[in-house]
């Protein structure tokens, strides 16, 4: 079975038209035409006349949950989500950034998306590797069944085998290239702090120029802030202009959190994010 992108696009258009005409939502977050087929853009539909610009193809990788927190509370929003993005929506609901009743989630069961830069297929190496949205009101297309179930953490094996100095050399080399464009922060659905810790001057948390030590501070703190919240959409690494494999570190932290606290981010609405929660019976061993 393969994904029929054209069919999903048509369904997306029909549903968007229906929701806007019935006045159930004032905004539909979907994908729109870009410069060319390979560069569709995040698109905000406000009028029915905008609907014809909606596209959906295998290059629509952006995580639209990024844009949910931009609108005032109470705005009725319909959002098109791919499987990983739906976890971001769940996580935002857990964190009470959006309300479930304000949202209409248009779930898109999909796999085999492509990275527009390299043309590579995006699979569980860079993303969480689930095929169906965990939360949706309207499903565009049919649920995907029969695809191989793979652990999103398999890709970490080689990096965990490296010794301490190997890991240090690897991350130093990668993070030194960072030009501090903050695209990772902009693309991330969970990075909504205003102001971001790195933009603060009082207190000043880190150096702001793109040099190795400051980069380390920015990225390590960012990994920490996303601990137990990163939903592994891999959008940070795709947004990165210098191709730093940020997803690796996020996956590692997510894996550790899952092992230590027994929950993955953004899977159930009723969960609390792992780091704003505790269990009395948590073991002290996690600190060793």
């Amino acid at each position, binding site marked *: 079975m393969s994904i029929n992108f054209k069919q999903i696009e048509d369904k997306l258009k029909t549903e968007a038209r229906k929701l806007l005409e019935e006045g159930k939502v004032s905004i539909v977050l979907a994908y729109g035409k870009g410069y060319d087929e390979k560069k569709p853009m995040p698109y905000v539909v406000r009028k029915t006349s905008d609907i014809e610009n909606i596209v959906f193809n295998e290059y629509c990788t952006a995580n639209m949950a990024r844009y949910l927190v931009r609108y005032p509370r109470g705005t009725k929003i319909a959002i098109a989500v791919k499987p990983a993005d739906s976890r971001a929506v769940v996580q935002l609901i857990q964190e009470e950034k959006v309300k479930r009743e304000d949202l209409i989630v248009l779930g898109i069961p999909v796999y085999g998306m492509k990275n527009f830069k390299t043309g590579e297929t995006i699979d569980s190496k860079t993303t969480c590797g689930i095929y169906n949205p965990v939360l949706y009101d309207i499903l565009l297309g049919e649920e995907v069944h029969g695809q191989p179930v793979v652990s999103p953490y398999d890709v970490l094996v080689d990096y965990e085998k490296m010794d301490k100095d190997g890991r240090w050399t690897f991350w130093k080399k990668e993070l030194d290239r960072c030009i501090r464009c903050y695209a990772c922060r902009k693309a991330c659905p969970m990075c909504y702090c205003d102001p971001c*810790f790195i933009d603060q001057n009082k207190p000043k948390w*880190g150096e702001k120029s793109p040099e190795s030590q400051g980069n380390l501070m920015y990225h*390590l*703190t960012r*990994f920490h802030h996303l601990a137990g919240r990163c939903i592994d959409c891999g959008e940070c690494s795709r947004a990165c202009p210098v191709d730093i494999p940020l997803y690796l570190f996020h996956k590692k932290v997510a894996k550790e959190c899952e092992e230590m606290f027994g929950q993955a981010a953004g899977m159930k609405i009723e969960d609390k994010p792992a*780091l704003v929660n505790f269990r*009395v019976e948590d073991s*002290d061993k*996690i*600190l060793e």
Partner: protein
Amino acid sequence: MEFEPKILGIACNWCTYTGADLAGTTRLQYPQNLRVVRVMCSSRINPSFIFRAFQLGADGVLVGGCHPGDCHYNTGNLYARRRLAVTRKILEFAGIEPGRFRVEWISASEGNKFAEVVREFTEQVKNLGPQTKFKIK
């Protein structure tokens, strides 16, 4: 000259800081490498404190809090435990020696334990040598 590490201690007001006080009043000897900062609770500690300390030249960071279940604010150190465990994993995966960072639960009556932990930790950091990876040049 022998390498003398700089160690930042972040101590909770109600247990570890009072414990350190007790170590002082009972005249226990412990290395002078430790600089203690007092916070009201171990959950007050922003992980950036630890990263920033390393950036500004600390060779080791020691965090002290109440024993789980004994927190003055009932649950503070239970949050801190999860948070600092993640900090540790992050330092480890980035390739920074996890031995430079330690969390200990020291209660107000454990002056002896405080002195013992500081001695042990200073020795450990001394063996690791100066911390250069994180430090701003």
